[in-house]
């Protein structure tokens, strides 16, 4: 049988997407459905004095109006947070209530106050417009740093000073001593800009209640339908989990923003029973800007200590992380266990101390966005290392080489709680320098200078912890869930195979990659494999797709189920061939017996499994259908080296990425075409963060960048020439040897771009530009220095 692993196989899912036959949530209509529009607060902070629902109910076509009080009266609970962070001195984080519809106070612009349900979308909009809410506007605070100041407006009464938790990791005394004893200490203060994820498909949800069976169905734009079902049933609506089906059909991009359990999902599900009709809600883009969880938003102070040779001796980091108004599903874990634990980077820094204060503000909740904590960590490390090299008069590549963890040091235990299983950082960097023609950069700089342009080069050597996560480790660190993955592999009697996976594809191409993996392992034609995902009624269980975990964890669960299929197949084959199961071997779709010419294809065995006319039933069950849960032993550690070259026009301040080289180590690859596509997209989002994207709130909490008119994302024109390659150190602890590739681009890129930009601007005396480095900021920095010099 032809082998598919490693092949650039074209995607099987493309056909429906290219012909308009994809089925996204908003494409689905239920018989008798109604339309929901949410009434949202225009104020960042206000007391709700009264809500007059009659004004909306009088609008023609309005079926019902529900408020937070109605939900509270039905005993509906708040949206839960899935990760408990324990702060300094054993103090647990403070978790204020997060009602799906606000009851007496609104805490960010976009906080929902009521839902209007009508016969048509326009009637619902008209009703929402007519609904009268009387607000008592209160002072608000949008900046996390300002929210910690004394006298700052308070977001929640139960969180004095607005600090959700004050958490630390590492040996503070050892770090302070090393900094004190250092030959040189580089200090760097930075802002990691707040981002709005902006998957192109806006969120949508349809709730449907069937009184015949007392069953609920929620169709939603989710990356993890089982998790939504669990959280919504157990915590919010308190309905039996087996009476609720959650379907996540085709989903148009997620990037983290569709992991979380959102209020609208619970509201439409609850309202569908209350109104006795299916209830459909589709976000528009303006609503998405206000209500999809945002990402990043850190303010950080860092110090890197080194000896006279540039060998790092300590790193100290203090970060203030904006949580927004409420704790979103995984918000608490992002600036702690997905951030500070990565601060060793690719280096042997012996002692590290990190301190993180998570702060509530009157802004949209902040949670995981592509990379989630790891881009923030990489930005701290790779910027400060670059600055250190400049201060020490060393080549940025040389200072990194001097500090890399060496291949013979794996498994490597970092001072921030992780054990890297494998890697070869020097190999990635060497290849990236070669591909990018780093050696001849100065010639290109001179060429640019001749044209009046400033050219710079920047490196970024990132690491990430993916394949989230060993449940025991996650649990010890505060996760309230296990983070395994589930799969079921089912043969039909005619030999075709359905694979039910708890991973969810919203662009990643699982229907292709998982089919390649399955076909090879079973030795069957790839077209005989169907990958099924996104439906809690069809799939045994699932933790979903995020954290670059689908292949490493979800794929491993499939492999584990396939292994069980082969064990069972051997028993059936042994019975059919009248041999001992221990003597049956399986290779490339064929069961055979050593030393004989007896053999059977897996298709023949599958058929017999379902036509068991002579099975000894006390020894052998009919059927060929196995499921498995895979819980990883460790995280995986994708890593790589990026080299970016930019050119700046000093007259306009415009910075263009001229050349981008990425060398990644993702372990073993199943479909290199899909992997490259993931890296392209990640790099584009990283360039977006570095040069274009920045969420801006006014001081009083109004979202200034609330549409595509105000929030700039990369378009086709912003994309440079890419150079790509891979180095490979297979993951040592999963059966595929894969590490994950979905987030790398977004993690490694921002530091590479800003390192290049600041290298370009050095000649003009500019040593830092905060992201996004817009033409205005760059022009102002260049001109401020010019004026100062005059």
């Amino acid at each position: 049988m032809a082998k598919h692993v490693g092949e650039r196989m074209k995607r099987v899912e493309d056909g429906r997407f290219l012909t308009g036959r994809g089925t996204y949530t908003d494409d689905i209509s239920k018989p008798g459905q109604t339309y929901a529009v949410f009434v949202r607060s225009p104020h960042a902070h206000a007391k709700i004095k009264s809500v007059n629902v009659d004004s909306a109910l009088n609008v023609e076509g309005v079926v019902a109006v529900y408020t937070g009080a109605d939900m509270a009266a039905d005993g509906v609970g708040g949206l839960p947070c899935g990760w408990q962070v324990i702060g300094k001195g054993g103090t647990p984080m403070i978790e204020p209530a997060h009602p799906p519809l606000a009851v007496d106070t609104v805490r960010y612009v976009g906080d929902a106050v009521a839902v209007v349900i009508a016969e048509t979308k326009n009637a619902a909009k008209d009703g929402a417009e007519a609904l009268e809410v009387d607000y008592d506007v209160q002072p608000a605070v949008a900046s996390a740093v300002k929210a910690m100041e004394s006298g700052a407006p308070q977001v929640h009464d139960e969180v004095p000073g607005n600090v959700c938790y004050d958490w630390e990791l590492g040996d503070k005394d050892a770090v302070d001593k090393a900094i004190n004893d250092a030959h040189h200490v580089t200090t760097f203060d930075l802002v990691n800009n707040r981002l709005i994820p902006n998957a192109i498909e806006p969120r949508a949800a349809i709730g449907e209640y069937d009184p015949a069976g007392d069953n609920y169905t929620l169709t939603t734009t989710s990356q993890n339908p089982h998790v939504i079902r669990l959280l919504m049933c157990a915590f919010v609506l308190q309905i039996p989990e087996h009476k609720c089906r959650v379907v996540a059909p085709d989903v148009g991009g997620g990037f983290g923003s569709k992991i979380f359990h959102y209020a609208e999902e619970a509201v439409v599900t609850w309202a569908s029973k209350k109104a006795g009709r299916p209830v459909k809600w589709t976000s528009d883009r303006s609503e998405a800007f206000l209500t999809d969880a945002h990402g990043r938003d850190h303010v950080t102070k860092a110090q890197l200590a080194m000896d006279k040779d540039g060998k790092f001796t300590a790193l100290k980091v203090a970060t203030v992380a904006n949580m927004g108004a409420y704790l979103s599903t995984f918000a608490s874990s992002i600036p702690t266990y997905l951030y500070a634990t990565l601060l060793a980077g690719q280096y042997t820094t012996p002692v590290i101390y990190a301190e993180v204060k998570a702060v509530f503000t009157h802004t949209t909740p902040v949670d995981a966005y592509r990379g989630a904590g790891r881009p923030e960590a990489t930005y701290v490390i790779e910027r400060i290392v670059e600055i250190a090299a400049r201060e020490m008069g060393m080549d940025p590549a040389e200072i990194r080489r001097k500090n890399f963890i060496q291949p013979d040091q794996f498994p490597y235990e970092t001072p921030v709680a992780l054990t890297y299983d494998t890697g070869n950082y020097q190999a990635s960097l060497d290849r990236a320098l070669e591909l990018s023609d780093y050696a001849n950069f100065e010639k290109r700089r001179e060429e640019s200078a001749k044209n009046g342009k400033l050219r710079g080069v920047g490196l970024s050597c990132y690491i990430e912890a993916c394949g989230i996560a060993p449940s025991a480790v996650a649990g010890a660190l505060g996760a309230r869930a296990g983070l395994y993955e589930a799969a079921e592999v089912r043969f039909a009697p005619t030999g075709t195979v359905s694979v039910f996976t708890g991973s969810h594809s919203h662009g990643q191409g699982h229907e292709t990659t998982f089919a390649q993996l399955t076909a090879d392992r079973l030795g069957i034609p790839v077209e005989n494999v169907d990958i099924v995902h996104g439906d809690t009624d069809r799939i045994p269980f699932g933790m979903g797709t995020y954290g670059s975990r689908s292949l490493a964890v979800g794929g491993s669960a499939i492999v584990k189920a396939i292994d069980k299929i082969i064990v069972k197949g051997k028993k059936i084959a042994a019975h059919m061939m009248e041999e001992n199961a221990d003597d049956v071997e399986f290779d490339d779709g064929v069961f055979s017996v050593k030393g004989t010419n007896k053999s059977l294809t897996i298709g023949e065995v599958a058929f017999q499994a379902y036509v068991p006319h002579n099975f000894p039933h006390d020894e052998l069950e009919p059927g060929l259908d196995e499921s498995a849960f895979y819980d990883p032993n460790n995280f995986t550690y994708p890593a790589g080296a990026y080299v970016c070259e930019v050119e700046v026009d000093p007259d306009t301040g415009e910075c263009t990425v001229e050349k981008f080289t990425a060398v990644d180590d993702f372990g073993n690859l199943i479909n290199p075409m899909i992997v490259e596509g993931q890296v392209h997209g990640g790099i584009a989002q990283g360039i977006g963060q570095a040069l274009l994207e920045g969420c801006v709130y006014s001081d009083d909490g109004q979202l200034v960048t609330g549409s595509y008119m105000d929030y700039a994302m990369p378009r086709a024109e912003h994309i440079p020439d890419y150079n790509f390659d891979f180095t490979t150190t297979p993951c040592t602890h999963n059966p595929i040897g894969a590490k994950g590739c979905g987030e790398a681009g977004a993690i490694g890129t921002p530091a590479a771009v800003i390192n290049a930009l600041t290298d370009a601007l050095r000649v003009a005396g500019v040593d830092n530009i905060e992201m996004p480095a817009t033409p205005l900021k760059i022009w102002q920095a260049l001109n401020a220095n010019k004026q100062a010099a005059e």
Partner: protein
Amino acid sequence: MSHAISMTVNGRSVSATVESRTLLTEFLRDNLRLTGTHVGCDTSQCGACTVHVNGKSVKSCTMLAVQCDGAEVLTIEGLANGEDLHPMQKAFNDHHGLQCGFCTPGMVMSALEVADNNSDPSDEDIAKGLAGNYCRCTGYENIYRAVKAGAKAMGS
């Protein structure tokens, strides 16, 4: 106020009575159930709703259905010939020019206009032709490759 309108959509004559405020995109999605045309924003900037009206690409979220009375409309559903993909659709598949697929219908419809104007478009032609289309997944790299290959195949 309601209006009786007729138009040809993907070669099929359709007639309906619509409200004045009905957008072309709503008419396609809700009245005709042609849900391949997507809505990704409310400020005419994402391009996911791009269709062709009388041979020109337009953002169907920015046109009223009544404005298309008597027009020829082509959507993503009208491109393939049975199960045979249009050369531009095939090029997007060949070059992995799509991931989640949500921007794809609009991207393909815009790409068709690039190809109609030039069977050998440069990077600059493509950047200009796709300036009104956001893709958040692909980083555009493979979309460039797809548009070039699609334009070439259409021209031959």
